[in-house]
């Protein structure tokens, strides 16, 4: 039985495996942060001071990738040094103070009895290597595993401390975050990221100011849009299948209809799939769980591949510039995105009506038709509208990689440097997107 300590949360016993997992994740987070600081420092050192001292002047400009991965050009033993060094630093910061990793998972170092003093901390650090090496063995042997869950790892036992769930004692004020270890680390992390990011993305405010004159001419052209091809098709596109399409208004309407087609098809397919991807409908049997996992996995995978990339594939398949290629790409992404949204809605319904229909002797399908669907129709419609909105935005630019739509005009005029026409196209896009956004927002308000 675990001993009770004054600062221990009584619910601890229930979360044994989860607690260990949280500790490990917190440790990993701290380690990642420490390594991030180290690597960033090496890189920054290289960028600002190291170019001359490390062999070859400005070698990194010719080999930016090695500079990024191995800024100080360390030999292989250097990496071992880094490994142990960072581990040591992590153990230190976790034992002395509450690190960011501990804070993020709601943990802190607490003593079995009494408070955590310097002696206990030092013991903990000394025994830590042994504890960590023995840990996998202890966990693998079932007889020892329970002991680990209740009493902790070796360094926990010997030092009389453990990293446990932290409950802030009520009545005591919170420490100001800039005075805590994790607060300082968080601020430093943020600043470092901003600084590093500024360098990595090649930012240079000077260029913005310096190039204002050059850019100004282009901008002036853009804001004086040329509407010659607003309703009359541009003859340059005579080679396309339907040259009469290529005026701004016609192409814009086509784009909206493309998005609509994609949304309708996507919703039609996503609708039945969403029931397969809902945990409360599927997970009553083994095979149901598999179907659920596969469906959810499919949704996640296809959602992670951005629409433009799908367009690349379909442009090759169906034809570069063919609007149907754009539609198909949008359909795939829509099915995945709507499927996920729909499934989440289905999972959130009230189970009472489902029980009622089951109790009447209804079959699974009847339950879905009478208990599930009526509850989710408003949110389904809202999500579909929302998706149409997004699809219209996407459809305006998929012509970049051959998806058809008004992007064809946009990117063509950009290539030919006809910025006034670009301005006209952009205005049309803005008007349409904004209007649809507004309408869809109002309708969604009414529905849901």
């Amino acid at each position, binding site marked *: 039985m675990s001993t009770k300590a004054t600062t221990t949360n009584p619910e601890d016993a229930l979360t044994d495996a989860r607690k260990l997992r949280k500790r490990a994740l917190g440790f990993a987070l701290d380690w990642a942060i420490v390594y991030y600081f180290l690597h960033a420092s090496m890189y920054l050192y290289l960028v600002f001071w190291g170019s001359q001292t490390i062999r070859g002047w400005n070698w990194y400009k010719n080999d930016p990738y090695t500079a990024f991965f191995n800024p100080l050009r360390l030999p292989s033993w250097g990496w071992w040094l880094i490994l142990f060094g960072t581990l040591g630093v992590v153990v230190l910061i976790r034992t002395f103070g509450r690190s960011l990793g501990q804070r993020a998972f709601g943990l802190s170092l607490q003593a079995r009895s009494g408070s955590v003093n310097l002696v206990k901390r030092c013991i903990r650090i000394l025994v830590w290597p042994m504890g960590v090496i023995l840990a996998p063995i202890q966990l693998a042997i079932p007889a020892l595993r329970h002991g680990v869950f209740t009493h902790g790892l070796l360094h926990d036992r010997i030092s009389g401390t453990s990293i446990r769930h932290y409950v802030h004692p009520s009545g005591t004020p919170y420490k100001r975050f800039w005075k805590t270890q994790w607060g300082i680390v968080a601020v430093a992390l943020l600043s470092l990221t901003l600084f590093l990011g500024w360098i990595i993305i090649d930012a240079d405010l000077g260029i913005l100011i310096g190039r204002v004159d050059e850019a100004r001419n282009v901008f002036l052209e853009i804001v004086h849009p040329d509407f010659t091809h607003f309703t009359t098709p541009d003859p340059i596109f005579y080679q396309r299948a339907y040259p009469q399409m290529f005026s701004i208004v016609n192409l814009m309407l086509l784009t909206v209809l493309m998005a609509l087609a994609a949304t309708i098809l996507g919703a039609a397919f996503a609708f039945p799939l969403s029931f397969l991807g809902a945990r409360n409908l599927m997970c009553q049997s083994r095979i149901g769980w598999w179907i659920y996992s596969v469906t959810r996995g499919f949704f996640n995978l296809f959602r992670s591949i951005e629409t433009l990339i799908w367009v690349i594939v379909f442009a090759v398949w169906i034809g570069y510039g063919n609007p149907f290629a754009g539609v198909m790409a949008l359909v795939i992404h829509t099915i995945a995105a709507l499927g996920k949204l729909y499934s989440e809605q289905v999972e959130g319904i009230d189970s009472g009506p489902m029980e009622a229909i089951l109790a009447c002797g*209804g079959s699974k399908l009847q339950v879905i038709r*009478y208990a599930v669907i009526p509850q989710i129709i408003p949110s389904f419609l809202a999500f579909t509208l929302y998706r149409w909105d997004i699809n219209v935005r996407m459809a305006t630019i998929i012509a970049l990689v051959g998806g058809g739509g008004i992007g064809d005009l946009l990117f063509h005029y950009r290539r030919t440097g006809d910025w006034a026409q670009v301005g006209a196209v952009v205005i049309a896009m803005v008007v349409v997107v904004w209007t649809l956004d507004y309408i869809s927002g109002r309708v969604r308000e009414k529905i849901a």
Partner: protein
Amino acid sequence: MSEPYLIIEGLTKVYERGQVVALKDVSFSVDKGEFLVIIGLSGSGKSTLLRCINRLVEPTAGHIFVNGVDVTTLSSGQMRKMRRKMGMIFQHFNLINRSTVLTNVLSGRLGYTPTWRSLLGLFSRTDREMAFRNLKRVGLEDKAYARADELSGGQQQRVGIARALMQDPDLLLTDEPVSALDPATSHSVMQYLEQMNREDGVTVLASLHFLSLARRYGTRILALKDGEIVFDGLPTEIDEKKFREIYGEEAEEVEVR
């Protein structure tokens, strides 16, 4: 007396890998036409017991015989057929809020309707007439096309009763049917249940909170405490002492007039 209609033998239900025991070896039997009232504190297992009978909840151990058939051994298809004859009424009504009252009542007939017809919402004319008759019986025929969530609590529960009536059930399981209603409406709903029991010969199992309602409407009372039966007998047999045993030392009886 012939075989009891409902026989429960050794029913046990355990949750969360042994942590929570909802029902512990419960055994009793019910004759046809009885109005059995189950009383007990919240958490004593009343809902679980009722849901085990029509297997909305799977029993961990034990047997349940309904009209001679062991429902614990039935496949899901056979269980569906069994459920057609078991009506159920819920504490929170469990109506389909966005649908009309008529649709809700008709959904009681789903067990008898082939899937393709039900998916399209094509109930037969006899079903529709039956629905109107049942709505008339519970006094709601003028609300047939109103949305279910536009009704008051008592009216919604009456819709639930009409839905159960559509199944033409032999057994009616009611899970705290009046807990969400005020006293006057409670009596009205209980009277409908009593009517079903007396006129249609339906065996009713009702779990109730108020002993006064149990005494008034039940022909027999079963009391559960922590998943076990602590009393099984006539309503008149419950005195102060028994009452405290069932409900705990600090309980006081509340009259529902």
